[in-house]
């Protein structure tokens, strides 16, 4: 398509619309501003509600601010129990998922091609079946084997979601590691196991940490299945949210939302380092 003589075509229109750099900058600014509003303001509303002493229609912000809602919530034993449960279940889920999916991911990454495709398909099917449908059927199963309303019942249900996702990411991470690095370790005298722990795992660590982070958050976030399978004794924070939303106690629900979001946002800031798009995208976009 380049012109043979290298001369610029005389008929280039004066750059307008998207081509004009000034216009582009303005559009990007609009987009950024719009996104900040779209993403930020709804969350801001919740924060405002959590501090709302008096807030009646049609005031845009509360007319009085208070911290009594926080006090009420943090003293409520149901809330404390739900928080403890959520933060107990999430690490257990993450750990178990990691223990199962890291070897599996490594096997997938180094396995023969034809076998791998079949297993890939097998891992994708859980994603295709609607989660809630799965949970409902699972609940029936649980009932028959006595796993309903138990700690481990909830843990295993959480693991359904995290396992597929984490295996996917660990496979991609291990695949991106040059096999020659392992061979060099074995050449230097390391057994296959030693080579894995000395070379492969350290290099894969950022990807695994990202995946674990998301598993942790996914477990904290899990509401629909836990609702079906964990009631009445195992109420996690998101499940408690369901009842709070319908009970119309706006400030209480708002306080709860803020509390539930804090660990996520903390993890977001702590993991800024690992959340470069290469790592995240490596897991999300490739396999």
């Amino acid at each position: 398509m380049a012109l043979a003589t290298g001369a610029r075509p005389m008929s280039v229109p004066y750059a307008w619309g998207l081509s004009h750099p000034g216009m582009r900058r303005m559009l990007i600014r609009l987009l950024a501003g719009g996104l900040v509003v779209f993403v930020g303001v709804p969350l801001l509303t919740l924060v405002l509600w959590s501090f709302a002493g008096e807030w009646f229609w049609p005031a845009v912000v509360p007319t009085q601010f208070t911290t009594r809602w926080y006090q009420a919530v943090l003293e409520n034993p149901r809330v404390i129990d739900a928080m403890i449960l959520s933060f107990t279940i999430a690490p257990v889920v993450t750990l178990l998922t990691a223990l199962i999916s890291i070897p599996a991911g490594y096997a997938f990454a180094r396995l023969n091609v034809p076998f791998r495709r079949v297993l890939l398909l097998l891992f994708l099917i859980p994603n295709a079946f609607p989660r809630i449908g799965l949970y409902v059927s699972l609940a029936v199963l649980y009932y028959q084997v006595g796993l309903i309303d138990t700690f481990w019942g909830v843990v295993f249900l959480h693991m359904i979601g995290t396992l597929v996702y984490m295996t996917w990411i660990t496979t991609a991470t291990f695949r991106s590691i040059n096999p020659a690095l392992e061979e060099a370790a074995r050449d230097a005298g390391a057994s296959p196991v030693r080579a894995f722990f000395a070379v492969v795992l350290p290099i894969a660590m950022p990807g695994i940490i990202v995946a674990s982070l998301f598993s942790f958050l996914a477990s904290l976030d899990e509401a629909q299945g836990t609702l079906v399978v964990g009631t009445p004794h195992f109420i996690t924070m998101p499940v408690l949210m369901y009842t709070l939303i319908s009970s119309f106690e706006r400030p209480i629900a708002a306080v709860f939302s803020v509390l539930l979001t804090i660990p996520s946002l903390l993890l977001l800031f702590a993991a800024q380092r690992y959340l470069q798009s290469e790592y995240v995208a490596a897991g999300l976009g490739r396999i």
Partner: protein
Amino acid sequence: MMVLPSLAFLTVFVFIPAITAALESLRVRARDNLGNYSYSFGVQNYINAITDPVVRSDIVFTIVISIVCVALVSVLSYAIALALRFGRGPAVRVLTRVYIIPLFIPSVIASYAMITFLANHGFVDSMLQQLGLPDGTFPRIVFDWKGIVITQVWLSLPFMTVLLTSVLQEISDTLVESARDVGATSWAIFRQIVLPLSLPGAAIGVTFIFLHVLGGFTVPYLLGPNAPQMLGVSMVAYMVNYYDRENASTQAMIIFLLSLVAAVYYVRQQFKREVR
């Protein structure tokens, strides 16, 4: 072997329930005049689902909403990803920080935030009120399909944007520069170079978000109308309220079959890329 534990887990916790659901959907319940139930094998449940106007409208509703969500997320994510890839300046830095936030907000909370934000007499309504909008003219967004769409788009944005960002990363600057060199406008560059090259990767994101919205429960449960309902919500209602396992399973299978179409497409795309 190293894959055994994960396979075992999946078999027990996914395949068995899924197969159970499939079998239950094929269990047809008949009632005779004396009120006795009898069960037989057949596809009657599916036929009922398609012919029953309520269920049928639910099916259509679910599919349409999913498509709308995917379309909107794609447009918005493309805009953000393009800005991140080709833009410069402080606005781009803001975008980088902000778009990832919804990923860290649990869906229950996001739904609730949207309720307070978009409800009648909610935040936006009160803002517009202050600007002079008469009371009562604010459209119904919460407990309406619009609420579902807005919230799902909000939640799916980071995933799609990250995916597109990594896909766009692979398009080298020289490709764009050479197009500019022969006089192409930005729109032409997008349409003829960026879009075709990014489409295979984007299709993967589209597939996943479609599956996710299609089978979703939390968002439509909290924000959706009573009728028509998304299948995820109605399925739970059938199970929990009516104790109708057969019809609940049928609806789950319908979602599954719809999802399979998208999933098969994704898998074939993957194989094509691997062959390449």
